[in-house]
């Protein structure tokens, strides 16, 4: 504590002579484009070689059907067990609800109570994201504050990547290689979706 006070005192002394500059206030960005169309364009551009996909479905039932069709083999109980030899710490895929989406940057926003809860977007080969269409905003400036109970926000824009060797783009670096985004018209019931998708009684295939 003593050191903190000492640092603050130093800063008080050092900044005393600086010109007073006001905070500029909010930044406003008029953008006339259609956010949903732009989101699709930008999400797809972040994975031009099939690393990203984008789909809009009518309602929760249609979403369930679509996920079952797109991920049939993953409905078995061992779906979470990765290929040990290839990637010892990775699950085949993770399913996450996005709290918001940002059109301009093609960003998926996750609000979580603890960073650890975002592992389903991290140690997976494929990150499957579901959200409601009315969660799309145009720019980062328009993002609402964190969801209630959340303390950490993760923004995801495209697959994990690196270009550290001669600027050659390599996907993935450590995180997922693919992101699949499914948007539902109307309200998303994520809890029900998860329990139906993974419940053995409601199993579609396998």
């Amino acid at each position, binding site marked *: 504590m003593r*050191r*903190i006070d*000492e*640092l*603050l005192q*130093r*800063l*008080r*002394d*050092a*900044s005393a*002579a*600086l*010109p*007073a*500059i*006001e*905070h*500029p206030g909010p*930044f406003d960005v008029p953008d006339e484009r259609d956010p949903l169309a732009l989101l699709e364009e*930008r999400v797809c551009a972040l994975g031009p070689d099939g690393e990203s996909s984008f789909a809009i479905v009518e309602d929760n039932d249609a979403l369930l059907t679509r996920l079952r069709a797109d991920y049939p083999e993953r409905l078995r109980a061992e779906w979470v067990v990765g290929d040990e030899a290839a990637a*010892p*710490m990775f699950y085949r895929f993770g399913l996450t609800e996005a709290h918001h989406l940002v059109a*301009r*940057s*093609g*960003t998926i926003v996750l609000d*979580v109570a*603890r*960073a650890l809860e*975002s592992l389903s977007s*991290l140690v997976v080969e494929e990150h499957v994201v579901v959200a409601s269409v009315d969660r799309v905003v145009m*720019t*980062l*400036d328009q*993002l609402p504050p*964190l969801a209630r109970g959340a*303390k*950490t*926000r*993760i*923004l*995801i*824009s495209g*697959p*994990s*990547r*690196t*270009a*550290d*060797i*001669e*600027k*050659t783009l*390599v996907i*993935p*670096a*450590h*995180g*997922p290689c693919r992101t699949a985004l499914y948007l539902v018209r109307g309200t998303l019931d994520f809890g029900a979706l998860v329990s139906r998708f993974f419940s053995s009684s409601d199993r579609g295939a396998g």
Partner: protein
Amino acid sequence: MKGKTLEHRARRQLSQSGLADTLYRATQRAVDKRNATIEDHAEWERRRDHARQIKLHTLCRIDELLAQFIERAQANGFVVHAALDAEEARRIALRICRDHGVTRVIKGKSMVSEEIALNPALEAAGIEVTESDLGELIVQLLGQAPAHITAPAIHLAVEEILTLFRERLAYELPSELRFEGAAIPPRQRSAIARDLTLAARRFLQRRFLRAQLGFSGANFLIADSGRLVLLENEANIRLSTTLPRVHVAIAGFDKLIPSHDDLATFLHLLPTSSTGQRLTSYVSEIGDGDGRHIILLDNGRSQLLADAEHYDLLSCIRCGACSNVCPIFRNIGGHGYGGVYSGPIGAALLPHLGGIDAYGDLPFASSLCGACSSICPVGIPIHERLLEWRERAQRARGTSGEKLIARAFAWLIERPAWFAAAATTYPLAQSFSRLLPVLRRWSSERDLPEMPRQTFLEWIADEGRETQRREEER
């Protein structure tokens, strides 16, 4: 640092075959991508002004805002430490490691940890340190410092990394990628770069799982929410700050921004300036403190803060764009600067953080083209800071040959006839160019223009134009 002026280092760096080629290629690609990403130039310029104002506002009220940050971060469960210098920061980091019985550390990229020379201190205490950013891992394995603020291995060609991985990671090139000779054929370069990346990934995965402590920097500290923000593409920082039991973040107090609402502007500016991305793949805005540690570092910054002419250097967001457009950087790379920070911002900052004796020559080694100031996303007039350093250096120096020449030159400037007469010595000087050091340095690799028969002003005088004008006035 004796004898180690920039001109000296430049000679060494320029003589490294291929270094400048590699740097020009990589930096130009980053700049081109940046330019292509900025769609709305008017909005971009407005954002730069906006960001500059936020940063300068933060700096003039830094004590209140930092106190607010500390209070809210503590309420979020962070343990907040303050370190007045590098030595103190290292001590705090070591104490945390000891308290948690840590023997293996995984690190996310952090320039501040370079600044305080953290790795050698941890290693001396018997702790295994692994850099998890690919570029950072490469320079760590080579025993080098990062060659660029955001792209540490920018100076290396694939061949060098291949050799390194063979030696250090027991890497073997898959049979389908084998090639003849020393240089990798162009069409195989990216396939090999990809395979090397995957090899590093496999190596690092074990390190992520074994590490008991993750170390990171921070791109922003948010005062009103008590959260810290980290940007990255690889996901190595998310893994480093999520998997190990303990997380320690270290940041200069200059990373502070007032509010969560201010973040968007910086998220717009930083990745685009750095790599031309609209946003990095990941941004973590961490507010679940739960025993995470934050070390707030001063290490010379408060002294710079008190410097009303230069304090805006503290608004730098370390995007590296100024290096990417800097012709000096492009020729000599980050290692040519002889300090932790490099490029134009390094040249302006290092004399503050590391002393004018060690780094005083950096501000002189610039053509003052101003490309850095034009590209800086927070509008720091970097080249003007370099000019001011020159002025300060001259004030500190006693009488020198250069000053006497300048004084004579100023005397001539005030006396047009003498000025013109002095200029007539040019052809004479030209014929003795080998003897005059100034002209010799010019003409060793460049021709000098010929002297025309008549100067422009002589011609004007002959034509009588000037006189005419004067007479009208009378």
